[in-house]
């Protein structure tokens, strides 16, 4: 080879001038390490095989050296050279981990410090959260390997390579790749009611009274959550609690709530006993959890109006043969909401995330007037929760945004409360903005190109499902075996991100207009077509607009770096542009209305950002608007003010503390689904929150 003034590219991407001496030294060292003679002639021969080009990477030179050693028959030396490289790779990995460790310690909060999976559900940054962060990169590698091995078996190597290619070029994104567990589930607690936690590896027997219900419930939710990577919804929580309160104080306890219930000096009333249990359960479940990297369990509950309740639990029987009592549950649901709303002015409580399930009549009005009215009342009192409205009891949410259709509400003693067991096994997200821009720039039909990506995602999800089945066959998934989750009612979810940005790239206006609607329907309809095509007896697919807590930021960053059109730093999780102040509240309901969401079977919760609270009558009218427009899943989001100096919490969106006048304040908001302090979100998400437009009602 000819020696001239080459530049080489080092591992960190920097350039250096090429040095033949360094290569010769490395080769000599390799010979010496196996006690083989290394004269100039031998070395020159090896070097003559090398083909050094300008800007060559260090790894490529080393690969060539390996090959050259083999060609010349120095197999022992080649092996030693490889081992030397491997040792250095491991060193570099440890160094990278050390670097990460010190960066993490320096970062402003846990979500910003997290390299792989920023999550505001971690409030503090400490040794426990650091321990959770460190193995994340290994999990990603492991998960990819598990999946690609399976894809190879099922569909061949080409598809496995295609998956990695689309993943590393950010056309698709695998959610929760840093965890091994399936995603989120709405569980039935029936197996626990019958047999305690023994079947999922715990040691407690079935609850027998209010006290063992409350304590056991907390433990059960902790255990279940440690086997899920996302949320755990317990839609039967208050119904069971009502049952146990009834056993303790009589079924009509709520009519006598002010009666003294205990003989202690405190002379607690029945109402006080009940709210003390609320306190125990809610505060316990909001604790950071060891088994989940110091994340609190992601706990969700549901409230029902009379008709929704009847539709889901009409056939439910408790082990003693009795049926749930609606009057008692109705009272208890209201009591819990009122208590929780008040408690939130004392402490920043994120969980449970609540969903109100309302059935509507043919005029779009809540069928159960009392509960429609109560929903508006709670919003007007500043309580923040989701509402799901439908003309039939077809869905439950398993986390703060994902709704899952329930196919069969039938109760059975073996499976427990029929329809409440649902959820999502795994989410694989398509970066629509990149996929569509790439197709258009290549002069191709974007729907056709997108179809290929969607098809790939379905195959990958099928492979994931096989891996999950494998884990189950080996007894690794007791939640399924014990009946808390019914695997046949769990969805494989296709997530979407960058929809609005792709539409903007196509030159569309993001308002309720026919072209935008057609664009949305074209894409979501295509995904649904594949969802149906891949559906079998044992797998179901749905499609969700993911909240993209950290993916929205990553996609924007990666796409910008690769030269795509990126109109904002964080991709929207809605059908409208969050910072757009020209859209009215009604426009936003329309943009999350039936024509837009009809193919979005996994749901998308409209977060109606408002600056001020409305009156009960106005909320009642907006519930009607939502029903009329067919927006079935939404919440109203008015940032709550938290004073950093005196700790006062106010339900209003204020610029100074009304108590001490301090301007050192923070806000609680739902940036994505759950209510958290803005300062807990990662830096880029906080910036998005600042740009967000809160309608001056």
């Amino acid at each position, binding site marked *: 080879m000819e020696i001239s003034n080459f530049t080489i590219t080092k591992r960190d991407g920097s350039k250096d001038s090429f040095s033949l001496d360094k290569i010769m030294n490395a080769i000599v060292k390799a010979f010496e390490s196996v006690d083989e003679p290394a004269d100039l002639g031998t070395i020159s021969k090896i070097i003559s095989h090398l083909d050094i080009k300008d800007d060559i990477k260090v790894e490529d030179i080393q690969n060539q050296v390996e090959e050259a050693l083999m060609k010349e028959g120095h197999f022992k030396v080649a092996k030693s050279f490889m081992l030397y490289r491997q040792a250095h790779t491991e060193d570099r990995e440890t160094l990278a981990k050390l670097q990460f460790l010190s960066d993490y310690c320096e970062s402003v909060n846990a979500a910003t410090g997290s390299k792989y999976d920023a999550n505001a559900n971690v409030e503090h940054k400490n040794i426990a959260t650091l321990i959770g962060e460190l193995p994340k990169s290994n999990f990603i590698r492991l998960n990819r390997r598990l999946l690609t091995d399976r894809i190879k078996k099922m569909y061949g190597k080409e598809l496995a390579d295609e998956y990695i290619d689309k993943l590393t070029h950010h056309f698709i994104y695998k959610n929760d790749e840093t965890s091994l567990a399936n995603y989120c589930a709405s569980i039935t607690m029936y197996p626990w009611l019958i047999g305690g936690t023994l079947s999922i590896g715990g040691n407690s027997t079935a609850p027998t009274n209010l006290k063992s219900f409350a304590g056991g419930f907390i433990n059960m939710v902790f255990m279940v959550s440690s086997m899920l990577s996302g949320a755990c919804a317990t839609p039967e929580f208050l119904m069971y609690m009502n049952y146990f309160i009834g056993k303790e104080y009589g079924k009509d306890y709520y009519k006598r709530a002010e009666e003294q219930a205990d003989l202690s000096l405190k002379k607690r009333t029945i109402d006080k006993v009940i709210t003390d249990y609320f306190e125990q359960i809610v505060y316990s479940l909001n604790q950071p959890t060891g088994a989940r990297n110091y994340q609190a369990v992601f706990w969700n509950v549901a409230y029902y109006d009379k008709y929704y309740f009847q539709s889901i639990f009409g056939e439910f029987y408790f082990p003693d043969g009795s049926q749930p009592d609606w009057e008692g549950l109705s009272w208890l649901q209201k009591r819990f909401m009122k208590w929780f709303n008040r408690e939130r002015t004392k402490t920043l409580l994120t969980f449970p995330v609540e969903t109100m399930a309302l059935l509507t009549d043919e005029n779009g009005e809540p069928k159960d007037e009392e509960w429609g009215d109560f929903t508006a009342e709670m919003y007007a009192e500043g309580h923040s929760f989701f509402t799901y409205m439908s003309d039939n009891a077809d869905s439950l949410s398993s986390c703060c945004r994902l709704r899952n259709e329930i196919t069969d509400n039938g109760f059975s003693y073996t499976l427990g409360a029929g329809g409440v067991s649902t959820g999502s096994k795994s989410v694989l997200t398509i970066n629509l903005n990149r996929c569509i821009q790439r197709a258009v720039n290549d002069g191709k039909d974007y729907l056709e190109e997108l179809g290929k990506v969607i098809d790939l995602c379905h195959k990958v999800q099928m492979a994931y499902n096989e891996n999950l089945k494998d884990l189950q066959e080996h007894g690794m998934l007791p939640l399924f075996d014990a009946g808390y989750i019914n695997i046949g009612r769990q969805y494989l979810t296709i997530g979407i991100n960058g929809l609005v940005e792709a539409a903007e790239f196509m030159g569309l206006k993001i308002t309720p207009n026919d072209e935008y609607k057609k664009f949305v329907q074209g894409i979501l309809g295509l995904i649904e077509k594949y969802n149906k095509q891949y559906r079998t007896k044992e797998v179901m697919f749905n499609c969700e607009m993911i909240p993209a807590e950290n993916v929205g930021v990553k996609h924007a960053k990666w796409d910008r770096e690769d030269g795509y059109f990126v109109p904002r730093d964080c991709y929207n999780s809605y059908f409208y542009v969050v910072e757009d102040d020209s859209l*009215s*509240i*009604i426009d936003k*309901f329309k943009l999350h209305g039936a024509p837009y969401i009809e193919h979005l079977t996994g749901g998308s919760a409209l977060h109606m950002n408002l600056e*001020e609270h*409305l*009156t*009960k*009558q*106005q909320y009642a*009218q*907006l519930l*009607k*608007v939502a029903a*009329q*427009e067919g927006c079935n899943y939404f919440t109203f989001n008015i940032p709550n003010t938290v004073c950093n100096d005196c700790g006062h919490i106010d339900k*209003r969106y204020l610029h100074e503390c009304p108590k001490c006048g301090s301007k050192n304040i923070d806000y609680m908001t739902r940036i994505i689904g759950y209510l958290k302090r803005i300062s807990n979100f990662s830096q880029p998400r906080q910036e998005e929150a600042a740009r967000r437009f809160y309608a*001056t*009602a």
Partner: protein
Amino acid sequence: MLKYVNTGIVFQEIPDEVTLAINISGCPCRCPGCHSQYLWEDVGVPLTTDAIDEFVAKNGKDITCIAFMGGDAEPRRINRLAQYIHEEYPHLKVGWYSGRMRVAQEVNKDDFDYIKIGPYLQHLGPLNKPTTNQRLYRNTHDDSWEDITSRFWKK
């Protein structure tokens, strides 16, 4: 000819209603310190019954009230439009934010469900300050008007 510049869905202006507010230009009041000075000039597009029909076609099912923000240059025209809305769309209420001290004689107040009167006087403050001179009245439809200005003060 009355002209309007834009519309908006608002919640604070008329308590308990979901209101489509029509911002009318050519305002003759010109209060010092006015926060909507863009409405002083003769700009925008004609506010006709066709324009009203268009608003209702777009948002009529979702709102409960239409409010005229301004229009003091032609009070009779506002009155006619209020009548029109009540006749064509009986489910909608009608509000009027006037900057005058009192409602013009030629206006039939019963064609409105809400009327705000009073110019903006900087030292007395806007509606949400208890010191304000402005008043919002609700038509009780039994020959009396209820002063509901205090609804703006409760926080």
